[in-house]
C-alpha cells in the first residue's frame, strides 16, 4: 500500500455561488478530510482560487483532480507536493496586554520565532506569525506553555508554484483562441 502524502491542490473556478460546495463534495464523497482550505479571488478578474491540502495517495489525488475538473464551472485543478511549491501560512495570536507587560519571556519568544507584534492596546495585543505550519505551531506551543494565548487563528496554506509556466493563463488563452475559432 502506497503511503499517503500531503498534497496541495490548486483549483481555479468561475465566480459562481456554490462552486466551493461542488469542490468539497468531491472530497466528502470519499470521506477524505480537507486539512486546510483557502478561497479568494485570484489575480485574474472573475476567477476564484482555492488552495486545498489533504493527505492521500498519488492515485487518489489524480482522481480528485479529474473529478474536480469535471465540474462545469471549474477551470483547472492541479496538484503538487511540497517540493513543487513555495508556500506560507499566516497566523494571529491574541495575548492580554497586562500579561504581556508582566512577563518579558513572552516578547523574547515572539522575537525568537521571528513573529511580530502588530497591535497593542490596553486590553489585548496581537502577534502575527507567517511561515510554515511547523513554525507557526512552534510559536503557539511556546506561548501556550505559558498559558497566555487567548485566541489563535491560522489562515490555511497559500502557495505559488515553482514552475516557469503560468498554466491558468495558458489555459485561458487557449480557450479564448478556441472561442474565436468556433465563431
Amino acid at each position, binding site marked *: 500500500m502506497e503511503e499517503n502524502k500531503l498534497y496541495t491542490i490548486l483549483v481555479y*473556478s468561475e465566480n459562481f455561488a*456554490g462552486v466551493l460546495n461542488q469542490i468539497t*463534495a468531491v472530497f466528502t*464523497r470519499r470521506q477524505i478530510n480537507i486539512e486546510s482550505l483557502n478561497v479568494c479571488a485570484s489575480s485574474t478578474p472573475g476567477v476564484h482560487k482555492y488552495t486545498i491540502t489533504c493527505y492521500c495517495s498519488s492515485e487518489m489525488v489524480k*482522481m480528485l483532480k479529474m473529478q474536480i*475538473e*469535471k465540474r*462545469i*464551472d471549474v*477551470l483547472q485543478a492541479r496538484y503538487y507536493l511540497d517540493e513543487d511549491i513555495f508556500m506560507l501560512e499566516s497566523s494571529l495570536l491574541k495575548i492580554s496586554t497586562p500579561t504581556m507587560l508582566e512577563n518579558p519571556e513572552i516578547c523574547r519568544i515572539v522575537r525568537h520565532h521571528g513573529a511580530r507584534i502588530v497591535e497593542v492596546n490596553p486590553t489585548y495585543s496581537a502577534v502575527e506569525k507567517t511561515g510554515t505550519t511547523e513554525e507557526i505551531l512552534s510559536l503557539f506551543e511556546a506561548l501556550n506553555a505559558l498559558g497566555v494565548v487567548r485566541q489563535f487563528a491560522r489562515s490555511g496554506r497559500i502557495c505559488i508554484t515553482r514552475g516557469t509556466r503560468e498554466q491558468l493563463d495558458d489555459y485561458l488563452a487557449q480557450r479564448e483562441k478556441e472561442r474565436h475559432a468556433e465563431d
Partner: protein
Amino acid sequence: MAEKITGSEALMRALQYEGVKTIFGYPGGSIMPVYDALYDYTRGEKKAFDHILVRHEQGATHAAEGYARVSGQVGCAIVTSGPGATNTLTGVADAMLDSTPIVVIAGQVPISALGTDFFQEVDLVGVAQPISKWSYQIRHAEDVAWAVSRAFYIARSGRPGPVVLDFPKNAQTELVDFKPERVDFVRSYVPYPKLDADAVRAAAELINQSKKPLALVGQGVELGNAQDELQAFLEKADIPAGRTMLGLSALPSTHPLNVGMLGMHGNYAVNLKEQECDVLIAIGMRFSDRVTGSLKTYAKQAKVIHLDIDRSEINKNVKADVAVVGDCKESLPAITALLQKNDHREWRDSFKPLDEKERVKVIEPAIHPKEGPLLMGEVVNAVAEATQGDAVLVTDVGQNQLFATRYFKYPKRRSICISGGLGTMGYGMPAAIGATFGTPDRTVVCFMGDGGFQMCIEELGTIMEHQSPVKMILMNNNYLGNVRQWQDMFWNRRKSFTRMLNPCYELIAKGYGIPYSCVTERSELKDAVAKMLNTDGPYIMECAILEDDNVLPMTPPGKNVDDMLLEVKG
C-alpha cells in the same frame, strides 16, 4: 426594442428556442406563473409544446430520460419547489449515472424568502449539485435566456447528463426584454477534448499487433452517434465486440462480430474471453463493477485501450495502457484509418464452444422450456420474436431487466431504455411513457416485475390520459425476484421480506381502463403477445412466472469475471 414579457413567458420562449417539443411536468405553488404561461403555449396560436401531466415528479424525470434516450434530444421536466423538486432527485441521479441529457426546471420560493424555511422551500441547487452535471438558480428574469441555453448546451454536449434549474417565483413574474441566447461555448468546460494523435497511433499499433483483440462497446457509441464508425472499426481489424447493457443497441444483435452482452449476467464466452484477450478496447464505457467483477483480477493479461469522451473515466477503475480521450465519432475513424485489415477467425471461433455451452445449459432451458410454470426468458423471447426487432425495449430493474436485456434483440440503434448505473426500480413505466413520445412510430415494450410495477404505478394515470401505447409486460413471480435470487444463492435461503403480496392487477387495469390479459399457460403465450401488440394504445399483459426462476449465467458479486456460474448448485 424587444417587448417586455414575464420571466415565465421568457422560459417558454427559451425552451421553444431550444427546440423543446414535449414537457413532462406537474404544477404546484412555486411554479404557478410558469404553468400560467404554459397554458398559452400548449394551445391556440402560441402552441409550441405538448405538456404531459405525470402523476408524480419522479415519473416526470424518468419520462424525460426515456424521451431523451430514444430520440437523442434533451428531455425536459417542469415541477414545483420543495417536494416537487426533491421527488425529481432519483431521476436526476439516474440520468447522471447513465449520461442521459435532461433538464429539470423547478419552481423555488422568491429569493427574498430563501433561507427562511418558507413553505415548500428546499435548497435544490445544494442537494442537486453532487448528482447533476450542472445546477443553477435563475435569480432574475433577465437571466432566463442565458441560463436555459447554457443548461441545454451542458446537458446535451460532451458526456451528456442532467441539468437542474432552480427558478424562484420572483424571477418568474419579473418583466424582461427577452432576447433569445445561444450558448455554445463555456470557457471552463471542454465537452469535446481534442484528439491526441500520439494516442491514436499508439492505439492502432497495439490493435495491429494484437492476436486476440476484444472490444467492449458502451453507450458512448450511441450518445456519439458513432454506430457506423464502430462497425467500420470492428470490421476492418476483425475484432469481436461485447456490449454493455446500456450499449446493447450500439451494435446490431445480428452483426457477426457481436459476441453478446458483458457483465454479471452477460454472455458466458465474452466474460471468459475478457480474461484471455491480449488487447482490450473499451469504447465509451466506464468499466462498471457490474461489468468487471473483481478489479484485482480483471483482464490483467491484456493491454487496455480506453476510448472515452470523459477524461475522468480514464484509470478510474481499470488502468489504461493507451487512453484516447475524445468523441468516439472522431476517435474511432482516426484509429480505423491506421488499422491494418486483419482476420481473427481462429480467435473468434474460440468463442463458439463456450457460446454453445451457454446455449445448451442456459439459453435453451430459459427460452424454450418444456414444462412447469412460465419463465421470464420465454416471455421475453416471445415478445422479441413477435416484434421482430422493431420495438424499443424498456425495462424496470431486477430480474425482468436482466432477462429482457439478455433475450431481446436489437437490430436498430437507440432501442434500449434501462436504468443501468443507479438501478432505479420504478424507472420502467414512466421511461416507457417518455419513449412513446420520443419515438412515436416505434412499438415500445416495457418489461416489469411485480415490485417495480408498483413503484411508479401511479403513472398508469398518465398512460390512461394520453393513451400512451406502452405494451406493459408484468412478469409476476410474487417476489422481489433478484433479491430473492441473491438470498437463495448467498444468504442461506433466508428470504427476508422479498415475498410480495400482490393486488389484483386485472382490477387495477380495469380502473385505469387499460386492456389487460393474464397468461398462465405456455400454450397461450404466443397468442397473448400477438393480441397485446395488435391492440391499439396501452396494454398490460400479466404473466404468472415461476417463483424461483433464476437469472443465469451469473458472476457472483465481487468474484472474478470468469467465475461465471451456468447453474445454481444444490
